[in-house]
């Protein structure tokens, strides 16, 4: 148990280390020169060279990485090349919104995906199952932003029942918050919902044909208990795997869908920073996202050990 935990932590640290190297390397992998970005297009080579040395870009690469990591470990992600605003502040301003949207999308995906999957499994190979499967196949194929646009045009523009743009946190104003987040959450959660419904369906079908289900039926355990306790807990193991993968996709989806709904979250910050070649902001945002994904995966692993006693510790 302890060694398993230690092994897990080592692998998490290695992942973060690898990610930090990749993020650091963005400056060199992505076309564009930060010094040119700062000095401006009309700058003379001398001015550019001056900026370059001010930014420390002439130092040995290992030293630059060391400085970068030193900052990261001290909560300093650098400052925007344009606004001179600390990247940490940008993240602190935009991340909560994005996370709220991601969670809202996840709630939609789980709350709809799991019951749909169970319903399909219980009626496997009937018309209802066919409809649910068709919907989830479509859900996987439809791009989030396109679905978002459709939702906006129907609910916000044609029927005008929900706001088309903007963001209100449910913690500030629950009613307005829900009204603003319903459509983005649906748009963000659609793909994950479809994936979860599919996985739940196939896992439930498999589990319901397991030997232990026959044992329980032979001993008179009611079908209700077999489906909702035994089959669901067994099926939740592969479903949790899918949810874990989906959270990474949800973050990606949120970044895209934010722009559709005019919400200035992490996605907006990332998009504008990328087009402006604002390297520190791009690096900071990506690093934070990677960190979140790693944390989510760690939590998923903990959840596994709780769901499946055959797994030895984290």
């Amino acid at each position: 148990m302890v060694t398993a935990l230690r092994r897990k932590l080592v692998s998490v640290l290695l992942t973060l280390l690898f990610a930090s190297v990749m993020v650091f390397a963005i400056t060199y992998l992505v076309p564009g020169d930060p010094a040119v970005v700062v000095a401006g297009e009309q700058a003379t080579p001398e001015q550019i060279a001056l900026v370059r040395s001010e930014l420390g870009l002439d130092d040995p690469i290992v030293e630059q990485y060391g400085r970068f990591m030193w900052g990261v470990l001290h909560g300093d992600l650098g400052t925007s090349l344009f606004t001179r605003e600390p990247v940490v502040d940008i993240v602190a301003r935009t991340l909560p919104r994005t996370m709220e949207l991601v969670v809202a999308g996840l709630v939609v995906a789980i709350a709809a995906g799991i019951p749909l999957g169970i319903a399909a499994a219980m009626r496997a190979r009937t018309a209802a199952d066919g409809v649910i499967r068709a919907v989830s196949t479509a859900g996987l194929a439809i791009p989030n932003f396109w679905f978002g646009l459709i939702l906006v045009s129907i609910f916000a523009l044609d029927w005008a029942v929900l706001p088309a743009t903007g963001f209100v946190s449910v913690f500030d104003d629950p009613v307005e918050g829900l009204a603003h987040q319903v459509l983005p959450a649906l748009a963000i959660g659609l793909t994950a919902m479809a994936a979860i419904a599919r996985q739940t369906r196939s896992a439930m079908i498999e589990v319901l044909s397991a030997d232990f289900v026959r044992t329980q039926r032979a001993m008179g355990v009611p079908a209700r208990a077999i489906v909702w306790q035994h089959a669901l807990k067994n099926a939740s193991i592969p479903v949790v795997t899918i949810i874990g993968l989906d959270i990474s996709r949800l973050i990606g989806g949120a970044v895209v869908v934010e722009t559709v709904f005019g919400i200035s979250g992490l996605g907006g910050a990332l998009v504008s920073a990328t087009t402006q070649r604002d390297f520190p902001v791009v690096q900071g945002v990506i690093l934070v996202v990677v960190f979140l994904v790693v944390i989510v995966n760690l939590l998923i692993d903990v959840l596994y050990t709780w769901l499946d006693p055959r797994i030895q510790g984290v």
Partner: protein
Amino acid sequence: MSELASESSTPSETLLDVRNLSLYLDTPDGEVQILDDVSFTVERSTTVGMIGESGSGKSMTALAVLGLLPPRARVTGEIRFRGTDLLAMSRAELARLRGTGISMIFQEPMTALDPVFTIGQQISQVLRSHRRVSRREAREKTIEMLDAVGIPDPARRCGEYPHQLSGGMRQRAMIAMALIGEPELLIADEPTTAVDITIQAQLLDLLETLGRERGTSIMLISHDIGVVAELCRRVVVLYAGQVVEATTTDALLERPGHPYTSGLMWAVPRLGTRRQRLHAIRGRVPQPDQLPTGCRFRPRCDFAVPGCAQPIALAAVGGEGPEHDVRCRRADELDLPGLVHDGAEADAENAPAVQGSGP
């Protein structure tokens, strides 16, 4: 119905009465008949064995009794339990009967228990499905039951998961689960096939003891006549979906009436011996959709005569002595070798040659 004429039981002591049970299953190639006119009874507080090679329909017979057949199965005949026809029962009534009237245990101890719930949770759940008891009371009864099936340190074992138990212990836990609702009939489908010989003997002892102490009737399914002989008073022999012989274990061992039964006796290693497959029956069990006409054992039988191609009913043989039904045209004239003569077990080395000793 004439083949049942020799059933000597009175209705009051008959617990399970299966009459003319036929089963048809839906397959990709259409409907196939799996069981044909199967009849047998299980008396109260007794033990009945059901033997036959793989594919003869033993499990399907048991699942039909519990109403747990695959979807789209079609059943004809009667399955009477305590006088009530189970085939006429509603789903809810059947679910209530399972676990309290009839319970069943299965072969695969690895997969037959839920891997993500503790054995205590699984056993308590069966109890709580049938009786209004508090969680605490259920736990106490569960521990008692685990103790009764010979699981050491039951209070601790209660909180363990199936993978933490050995195969034999898992099988004991499944027996506890099957018996906690105090059923009158326990169907055990090859409960010892997956465990080694020592554990097998222990489990058979346990079933015997529990059955006797609790007055539970046991229907033991096995392909191993030795296992059945160990535990059961009566034996039903199934071949290709038909009952080919039914009588007391003693009568069967002494004087098998059907060439298939006799072949089975010499084909399987006996409990406690290391002698393997002395005389395997040649050929294989026919598929349900490729049955020969007349006697279904005919292609594999050394005693077959042209008349065997005509349909044959299960009929009583022998004069005095226990009831003895056989489905063989030549049952009365053949003198087939049994395993036991005057109470002494025959020596396997001097086994009478079953094969090639035809007329």
